[in-house]
């Protein structure tokens, strides 16, 4: 009943006419977002009779707030870890699969075209809508929980054809040079969107065909800097309109990307922490990082953290990539993302302030937690980690 009341209130707010069944739910329920009241809410629900508390469709989880096996290496306080354990236990009791990942579209079960979903991470929603042609709105934790219990969501927004059409056109004039370039492009497009209801159309440079990881960074940054749930890339994504070389479009090139990098300028050069996360790394990104760190050693005054999903960490360990990163002094965390790990508490516990990352999403989020971030390609982040100084 609680779930239906929540869904009716949201459905009426957005003028939904009915509900649509979903095949998968993905829920954000880390302890940093939940807080003690959210954890208590989940525990109360988990205490209900089995027939009332079990999710009715397959439900997987977004990153949690602690990697229980590696708490000591980043000085996470016990109180946070205890709260996270309570949340995880409640989610498991509700029948969810604790995948603890924001890249479920790469590592769990990729959505297919036309599939209706209730995804609970902005990066996973924008990827599912744009790249896979599936259909999901942003479903925050309580809404994803309601969808998991009822097996349906109010039919509005990106479940409807009318919402998925492109608006403003963008033309990329030079191919992005790195994953962080893709992220910067996504951020620039996302920042210019006026609301959730706008869908940008992007014409890539010279017929360039992006990879899954490139579109992952592009979409995650766009969703974070705007509130964007879908984009089209002409000749790449399934619902994109054709490129129109003569049509009016906003142009973006290397000069715009470089200016975006330059807009992040920490007040000192000493580098406290390098973070590869947001989104979690794919197996191929893990390999790229391991190769860059080969024969190198992270500076003693700098921490290097990597966040990936439990499945990808396991695969990376089998391939020798985790050992390679750890040999260089890095810490490979599973099932978490940096900003969901109570980043403000981590800053206080470790004395961290300056942060370098190749994630255009993370630089958007982390300043609010008291960090001074810098954005750079993965190669330059590694150079900085080794030298202990921000490399610009």
């Amino acid at each position, binding site marked *: 009943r609680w779930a239906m009341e929540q869904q009716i209130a949201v459905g009426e*707010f957005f003028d939904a006419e009915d509900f649509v069944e979903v095949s998968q739910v993905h829920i954000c329920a880390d302890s940093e977002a939940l807080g003690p009241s959210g954890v208590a809410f989940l525990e109360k629900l988990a205490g209900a009779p089995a027939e009332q508390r079990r999710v009715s469709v397959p439900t997987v989880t977004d990153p949690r707030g602690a990697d229980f096996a590696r708490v000591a290496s980043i000085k996470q306080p016990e109180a946070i870890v205890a709260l996270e354990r309570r949340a995880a236990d409640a989610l498991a009791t509700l029948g969810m699969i604790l995948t603890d990942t924001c890249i479920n579209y790469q590592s769990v079960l990729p959505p297919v075209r036309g599939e209706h979903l209730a995804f609970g991470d902005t990066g996973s929603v924008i990827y599912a809508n744009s790249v896979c042609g599936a259909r999901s709105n942003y479903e925050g934790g309580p809404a994803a929980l309601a969808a998991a219990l009822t097996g349906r969501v109010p039919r509005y927004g990106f479940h409807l054809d009318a919402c998925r059409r492109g608006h403003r056109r963008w033309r990329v004039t030079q191919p992005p040079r790195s994953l962080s370039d893709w992220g910067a492009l996504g951020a620039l497009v996302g920042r210019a969107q006026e609301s959730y209801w706008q869908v940008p159309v992007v014409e890539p440079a010279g017929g360039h065909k992006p990879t899954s990881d490139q579109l992952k960074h592009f979409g995650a940054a766009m969703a974070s800097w705007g509130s964007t749930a879908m984009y089209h890339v002409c000749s790449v994504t399934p619902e994109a309109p054709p490129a129109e070389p003569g049509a009016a479009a906003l142009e973006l090139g290397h000069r715009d990307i470089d200016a975006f990098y330059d807009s992040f300028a920490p007040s000192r050069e000493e580098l406290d922490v390098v973070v590869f996360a947001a989104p979690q790394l794919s197996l191929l990104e893990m390999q790229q990082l391991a190769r860059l760190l080969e024969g190198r050693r992270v500076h003693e005054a700098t921490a290097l953290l990597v966040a990936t999903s439990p499945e990808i960490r396991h695969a990376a360990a089998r391939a020798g990539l985790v050992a390679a990163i750890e040999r260089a002094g890095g810490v490979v965390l599973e099932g978490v993302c940096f900003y969901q790990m109570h980043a403000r508490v981590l800053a206080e516990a470790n004395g961290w302030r300056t942060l370098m990352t190749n994630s255009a999403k993370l630089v958007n989020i982390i*300043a609010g937690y008291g960090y001074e971030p810098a954005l750079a390609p993965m190669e330059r982040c590694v150079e900085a980690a080794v030298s202990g100084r921000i490399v610009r």
Partner: protein
Amino acid sequence: MSEIRGHRGIGRPVRGIALVAADNFSARYDLDRERGVFSRPAHRLFGQSYVRKVLVLNAAKGGVATSWMLAEMAARDLAPLALLLNYANPIMAQAAAFSGIPLIDRFERDITQAIATGDEVEVDPAEGLVRLRSKAPRSP
């Protein structure tokens, strides 16, 4: 007394003092939820307390965590009294439904221009109406 009409909202009617900026909003990105202040240096309300204010901003930004976070803020009496946005996204609507914090959006004119910080307003979500009860002094 002037009225500003929006789309039908969510939540109970409330009356309070407005805190306004033509900026966007995300609980995770912008707030120090322990101290009840805006903590993102680039935000126009940086350093200001939003606690028990009618928060008037432009649009919802990325971040799905806002719906849990607003409920936690309300449980600790460190939440805004209501949210008025030009454009909510689903997360804000879900947050309002879950936390009980009233929300209205899609106004007939730019709500961040129609109301100024310090104005006293009445928020009536069922009617989709904001009534301006008294105006704060405007700078010349």
